[in-house]
């Protein structure tokens, strides 16, 4: 870990110095783990991550730089945005995995779009159930409640498989990255259906 250019204290994160409370200049290509001063890895302690982000935010949020020199104020604004973005990526299991795959030179989501035939058949089945449920009125169709449970279980299973594939972190260009990408793509299908069900649930709750 490097030291603060102003007071030479060892830095917890490159965005600011906890000792002299000044925001520091940050290169564009610094990734989310580095922004928060964390070692890269898929497993993450959610509470530790959150507390860390709150602590850093309390050092560099632009609210505290109203009277500072404009260069420091701009840095505080930009670095806060970087910290918020890093938190958004790392606190979400899917986004974190996606970032790790890309950073290790794995395929991006556009490159690996082909899904297995059986999976696509299943997707068609969900969509049929959703279509039928949309046609009914009043409460949420019991079949949808069942489907929601099933999709949530599959999502959890996909995430568990991603976790084991990414722990320990695979080497650059490893074939595991391709498998993770496929799992992530299947989660995108699951999430789209789950979002549909959720908006249907909200719409039904609002029906009067």
């Amino acid at each position: 870990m490097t030291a603060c250019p102003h007071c030479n204290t060892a830095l917890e994160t490159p965005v600011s110095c906890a000792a002299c409370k000044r925001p520091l200049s940050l290169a564009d290509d610094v990734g989310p783990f580095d922004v928060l001063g964390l070692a890269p890895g898929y497993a993450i302690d959610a509470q530790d991550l959150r507390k860390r982000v709150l602590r850093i935010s309390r050092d560099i949020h632009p609210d505290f730089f109203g009277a500072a020199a404009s260069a420091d104020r701009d840095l505080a604004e930009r670095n806060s945005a970087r910290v918020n973005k890093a938190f958004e990526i790392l606190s979400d299991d899917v986004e974190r995995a996606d970032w790790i795959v890309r950073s290790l030179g794995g395929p991006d989501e556009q490159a690996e779009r082909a899904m297995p035939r059986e999976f696509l058949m299943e997707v068609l089945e969900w969509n049929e159930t959703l279509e039928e449920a949309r046609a009914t009125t009043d409460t949420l169709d019991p079949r949808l409640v069942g489907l929601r449970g099933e999709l949530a279980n599959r999502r959890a299973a996909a995430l568990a498989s991603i976790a084991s594939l990414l722990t320990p972190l695979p080497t650059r260009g490893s074939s595991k990255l391709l498998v993770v990408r496929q799992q992530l793509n299947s989660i995108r299908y699951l999430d789209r259906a789950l979002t549909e069900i959720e908006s249907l649930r909200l719409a039904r709750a609002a029906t009067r």
Partner: protein
Amino acid sequence: MGYIELNVLNNTAPEFALGIDLGTTNSLAAVWRDGRPIVLKPEGKSALVPSVIHFPRDGQPIVGREARDHAVVDPRNTIFSVKRFMGRGLKDVAQELASLPYKATETERGLIQLEIHGKKYTPEELSALILMKVHDVACRSLGGVETTKCVITVPAYFDDTQRQATRDAARLAGLDVLRIVNEPTAASLAYGLDQRDKGNVVVYDLGGGTFDVTVLTIEDGVFRVLATSGDTHLGGDDFDQRLAGLARESIAKEHGPGIVDDPGFQQAVRMGAEHTKIALTTDPEADFHVHVPELRLNWRRRVTRNEFDALTKDLVDRTMDACRRALSDAKLETRTIDEIVLVGGSSRIPAVRKRVEHFFEKKPHTELNPEEVVALGAAVQAHILVGGKRDMLLLDVTPLSLGLETMGGAVSKIIQRNSTIPCEATEGFTTYADNQTGIDFHILQGERELAADCRSLGRFKLRGIPPMPAGMARVSVKFHINADGVLTVGAKEQSTGVTAKVEVQPMHGLSDGEVETMLKKSYEHAQADFDARRVADLKTEIGTMVLNTEKHLNAARAGLDKESVLDLQDALAKAKQATSSTDVKAIQKARDEFERATLPLAALLMNNVAQKALMGKSLGDV
């Protein structure tokens, strides 16, 4: 040995800033004093300044309570609810305009203008008048202490254009806006909830014209907003309109349908309905009275609370829908909510309280006045921003997704709603034709999939891309939302480093040039206003100085040389005489002369005070 430092000459005030709630119905200011926020009110009066402006045929516009008294007699020239027009076009507010007696037009860029006495005013200019009044009331109740620094609140669900319009209004009012803060988030700061270790809070904010619900979590003194939802077309005004409908229908039957188009009638019904609604918060039954002497109309009817609840049930339902959406976005369930805070005058409606309590299965906080809580919270944030408080931090979100129009009229979302601000995101684009040298971008805000259904924030063009085959250019577009929730956009072609001249011309907003022109215009009037104010202040000041001098001069006369006494008596007489003048320069000169002449007296008095302070103490004690 010690020494004493008489601190009588050090009167530099610590820096402070106002928290201003610029509301649809009422506006007010608060400030941080002695460790807590307090609302600023003229002695013995309410802190609320009705957000109403009356334009007399001659003379300066009148704002506040006095303006409201003109509503029935001169409805066309008395403006209510201007906040509903902020950052909007005619099409957006057609429904509102139908029930208001104003003549409205639109500029070619879609900026709404209200016509009063043949002059056109933008909502920004009208809001500026309200802000000036609130600022004036606040500074007066602080005993004439001046500050132009402030935090202004907006509904959480305001879009970028509406936020910019609020900022422009403040600029026109001569205010220095430290921050635009979301109303419900501000409200959470007022309740001192940071005292708790950790918890989830819902703020239910039903104001005069807008509804917001915000879910936030508090941990380690940081207030982090998880989700916000709402409706910028739902508020207390709508509840009034339901009651007004009752009156309109019945009166039209008795007096013929023509009467409902009369502006005086419309205002009388509005105000009667509001009155009835307020009475029904405490009484199970109330009178609805519409009296317009000019139309020989004196209508009266009893309304029960049950009747009112039935008329407005769907409005309350709509607020609960938004609560469900916000909880869903925050990925929380009602049982995980620890506190509920009620904000906005309309949250006093008993049916609203009942529904909220039933939905969350918890008694909401109502200890603070729901009409003051937003301003109080804004004062807390203002105190943080001037560097007075470092143990608390607010992390807010952007309420609506932001994106760019893609080929075929769809929207590519670049920043998702409920992202913590400040935030930034970059997206890559490329050219679709060989040798294409420019790309048009259309910035959109909203949740809908089609560009046509989202709010257009502006367009810009990246030019100067060197000719190359289609798909080769690598253009990155960067969105940045600052801590005010205001967006800036930049575009860059990666291989050549060409950057876009990003001139985002806001729709339904003022251009910088227009703001400048308006400012110039207002300065012309401002000089006269300022002089009148200065004359009043100087007269008060001279009065106090005369009083003090006369009080001390006789007792201290012996200690002063004759010349000083004559000089002082002469200056005192001249200052007294000057108070009958209206010439600001003459009064200022008399006051300054007077002050100079009092200096020997002041020095003598100070000496006496110091001696008294030292009396009876040995040198070692001090």
